[in-house]
């Protein structure tokens, strides 16, 4: 399923939502704990691996811009996900429509079917395919947009959430 090609990792969510994402390179604890550490001569270190990962593993806009290997991989997998979605929808629409002549040629009885005096061929060719095209097109538009939103969330959360 191509829609899952670009699922957002949990660490990316941190970048988007946690206000502390900016100083994630200092994985030490905050002010009050630091004060008590000086007094007792011990230092309490809180290891938060997800915030460290943010800086190194999540491709950002700069990767895409500078064409780093990471950015290239991201761009290719995004294009591949979009292509997969397109081909899936295309295959669906083509299979349903283009199989009708073959079926009619192999089973001629199909063309003899009438419904309330109206030949099946007329119903299929005159009316039935259009709702299918609309449904496939609607589904594709929704999925393609979702892929784009996922990518935007991943590399540039700020552009999606101005308040973050």
């Amino acid at each position, binding site marked *: 399923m191509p829609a899952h090609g670009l699922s957002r990792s949990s660490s990316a969510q941190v970048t988007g939502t946690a206000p502390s994402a900016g100083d994630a390179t200092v994985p030490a604890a905050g002010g009050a704990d630091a004060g008590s550490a000086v007094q007792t001569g011990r230092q309490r270190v809180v290891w938060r691996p997800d915030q460290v990962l943010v800086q190194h593993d999540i491709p950002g806009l700069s990767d895409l811009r500078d064409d780093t290997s990471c950015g290239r991989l991201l761009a290719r997998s995004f294009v591949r996900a979009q292509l997969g979605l397109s081909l899936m929808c295309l295959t669906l629409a083509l299979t349903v*429509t283009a199989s009708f*002549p073959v079926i009619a040629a192999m089973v001629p009885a199909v063309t003899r079917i*009438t419904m309330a005096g109206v030949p099946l061929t*007329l119903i299929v060719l005159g009316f039935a395919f259009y709702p299918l*095209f*609309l449904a*496939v097109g609607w589904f594709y538009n929704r999925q393609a947009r979702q892929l784009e939103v996922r990518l935007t969330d991943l590399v*540039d959360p700020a*552009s999606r959430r101005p308040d973050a």
Partner: protein
Amino acid sequence: MPDAAIGAIAFVTLLTIIVGARGIRVARTPDDFMVAARQVPPALNAAAISGEYLSAASFLGIAGLVVSQGLGALWYSVGYTAGYLVLLLLVAAPLRRFGAYTIPDFAVGRLGSRGLRQTATALVLVIGWFYLLPQMKGAGITLQWVLGTPYWVGAATLGVVVSCNIAMGGMKGITFVQCFQYWLKLCAIGIPALVLLIAMRHGSSVNLTPDRAPVFTHATVVTMPQATGFTLTRPAEATVTGLLDQRTFSGQAARLCACRHVAGAGTRIGFAAGAPAPVSLAMEQPSGESWDSPFLTSGTSGTHPLAATYGVIIATFFGAIGLPHILVRFYTNPDGEAARRTTLIVVLLLSTFYLFPTVLAVLTRVHAPQLYLSSDSDSIVLALPALLLPGLPGELLAALVAAGAFAAFLSTSSGLLVSVAGALSHDFMNRGVNAFRWCAISAGVVATIAALLVGRFSLALLVGWAFAIAASSFCPLMVLGIWWRRLTRIGATAGLVIGGGSCLAAIVATMLGAAARGWGAVFLGQPAIWTVPLAFGVTVVVSLLTQRTVPANVSQVMLRMHLPETLSRQTNRTIN
């Protein structure tokens, strides 16, 4: 009778000119002039695309072909709609994001080569002119039917009106015109179809029964407008007044054998209910036994119907991507997302429209089988309303149909002329607005003259051929250019030349009458079945052999085509 129709046609033409001329004041820079400044909202743009797309073939051709050849001809309307679904799935958003004006612009921007640009431009001209011919033919037969003028008058009128309108208004005007044309066309085919459907609701479905030749459902007197040859599928009793089979009758009953007959002009033949409908020898193919078959036989003399059907399916499904006058419209969307929305609305608008030619064709089959005596299947839609509804209502509906038909020719040929003239002036002359105007006028003249030579081919067939050329040339270029990094300019050029060239050669051979029977007729008459795979294959193989010429900026171009605008604005330093 023609008065109302003449008035309606004149009204549509004048309105088109006036709305188009308004655009002259809006158009300021050449950019505005060419693509309407990219500020057209999706709903308006979708109606404009549909208005431009629904041509003579959709308005007159499909219904006529369904009547004369059978339900298989509906593959044309299915395919014309599916073409937009394929376009939506494969090219709509990336193409808009790429941001070029025309197909040659796309080819050069993606692959960068002067030779490729000229090849693409030459193909724009071929497809554009090929597509203009049926529009001119449609205008010819419509005016012929309404006014009784010779065929060339209608073709020439359309040529003059469209060329002048384009030369004056450019595309800003045309966007409004095209949008208006869609709704006009929908009304002009939808209202008559619904009115006639309601008026005829008592009809029987006897003519829809599989394997039945059409019969008169009630006693009918048929008048021959001109000397007509026809056949009957079985013997029939009839009362004849006038010249029939070289004998003069004056209202006597006669027994007509199941064979060929020739009736003189003005001869009236009265058939009883249940009598077989006579079928004109001028109809492309005698209809009857196989009317309900889902196969299409147009252009191949009825041989190998399954292959011919797939030929049309491939040509129409993949041809819309390569139509030069349609792609120009995608650059007027604000962004890629809007391009996708626009295309989906187009699919909706086309689906709605194509319900009605089907209804009209079925009404003809069921209630007016005497139209099988028409000399040209393309005029059936024009003749139907007056036959089914005698008197003023029928006349008004006929006028509406004639006006809608004329709107179809006007809008499609306007769009085609814009792209043909744009390609000519942009690539072969200095690029100013004046050059564009002169190119519009000269391209219109050439198309009008050529249209005088294609009168004997049906509209749907001619338009289907334009789609076949587009599918076997520009479709591989666009699809592979958007999705495949390894495409090279040499591969693309080879695909255009071999795919487009072989398709064009096959069609010209068919027009000249080569191979009327057997597999030859299928391969030449519906060439898309082999030229489209050939074009894709050649493009891919030659590209793989010339990998050293892959453009250096391919990664950047791919990003620009596929990233949403919010991102590509920030990642692209060099372009935009």
